[in-house]
């Protein structure tokens, strides 16, 4: 049996705790297909929150374990390339924190292959994992009131891109002109959990 812990989250949701991000992505994808009664399937870093209006008959933990026991399928994951200009206001600070040169911060950030772990904080805001561990830096002590749309940023184990202007505490390394979220487009968010992301230096 695969490692799944189910924790109740009120009377219309269950939080499934899984071994890692990859398991969460696979379980989320499977539940979305296998259990149409679920109104939301929300992956987290290594959890999946399943929400319903009418409780599904199926045992969600068993469905999740079953999905993990099956051999991994390539699934609908895609690789998305995002052009980035590395001229962020926190580049020097991240260089100082990591004892790297700003140039090396850029090289290490741009050459990594990322995976979208989950989306949260704002519509279309993807938490990218898989980046260079040397670049794991804490958030800023004081969040900015206005982070420009398209800002490419790091915090903890994550990289992320702000789809729209708004407050934020991550450290800004660069920016992209890519439109990551548009509610009028299908699909509205460019990045989905499980997608692979490459950052192309401009």
């Amino acid at each position, binding site marked *: 049996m695969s490692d799944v812990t189910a924790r109740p989250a009120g009377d219309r949701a269950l939080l499934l705790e899984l071994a890692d991000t990859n398991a969460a992505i696979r379980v*989320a994808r499977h539940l979305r297909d296998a259990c149409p009664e679920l109104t939301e399937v929300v992956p987290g870093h290594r959890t999946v929150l399943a*929400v319903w209006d009418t409780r599904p008959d199926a045992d969600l933990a068993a469905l999740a374990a079953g999905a993990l026991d099956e051999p991994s399928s390539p699934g609908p994951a895609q690789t998305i390339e995002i052009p980035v200009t590395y001229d962020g206001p926190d580049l020097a600070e991240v260089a100082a924190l990591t004892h790297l040169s700003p140039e090396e911060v850029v090289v290490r950030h741009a050459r990594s292959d990322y995976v979208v772990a989950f*989306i949260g904080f704002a519509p279309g805001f993807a938490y990218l994992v898989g980046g260079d561990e040397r670049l794991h830096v804490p958030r800023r002590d004081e969040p900015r009131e206005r982070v420009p749309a398209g800002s490419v940023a790091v915090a903890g184990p994550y990289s992320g891109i702000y789809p729209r202007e708004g407050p934020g505490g991550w450290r800004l390394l660069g920016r992209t002109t890519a439109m990551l*979220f548009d509610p009028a487009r299908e699909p509205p968010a460019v990045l*989905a959990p499980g997608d692979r992301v490459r950052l192309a230096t401009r």
Partner: protein
Amino acid sequence: MNALEVLEPGPLTTIQDDGRPGWAHIGVPPSGAVDSGAYARANELVGNPEGAAALEATLIGPTLRALETVTVAVVGARAPDHTRTLRPGDVLETGTTRGARAYIAVRGGIDVEPVLGSRSTDLLTALGPRPLTRGDLLSLGPEPATAAGAPQPDRPPAGPLRVHPGPRDAWFTREALELLQAATWRVTTSANRVGIRLDGPALERARHDELLSEGLIAGALQVPPSGRPILLLNDHPTTGGYPVIGVVANGDLPRAGQLKPGDEVRFALA
């Protein structure tokens, strides 16, 4: 065709329907009317189908002028819940609300462009129509086939809000869960459609490591480092890294949505 003009919007009046579920995995909150029961009654009173967009007023309702003949229902204001027909030029003053929110439904429903399938204003992400401002003109959808319903008395259940422990109750001391039920909590001025910050004793954590971000749901009692819980409402962020000690029963969420600054609230395990 414009049917109503906003003479005074009140402190915060938004357009709400039953929200935009199904998009949480891309970071879009559920949104929708916070007191889903009062919203549904208002629509029923004017014969609207479920899910028709109505107005959600906060603390003080809007003043509206009819530009054509319209049927409106007001639920949750100081005045008893009622239905009224307005002729062109008639003015509807909603007045103050009984709880935090009142609903004004108009026969036909408020017609604005849906965003991701919903006409709701989402205050967290600014999706959907912006809150009403003075001079806004509202148009209506097609006349529904159903007749207007009879007003139902509003009998909100009394007593504490029922809470299901978890998903992260184990991150707190045993005393914290007891304290959650024993304490009388006060609604602070930080109370909006995103969530309600409660004041009371600090709920102590048994685990002090950082929780990795996980999915959230309306009704969740999220506990930040201060130990004072935040009760999440419909415009809540879809993921968060503060542990959730318990979740308010779905049936009690409409009541939670009527809590206003200064109110006292108690919790009991479901």
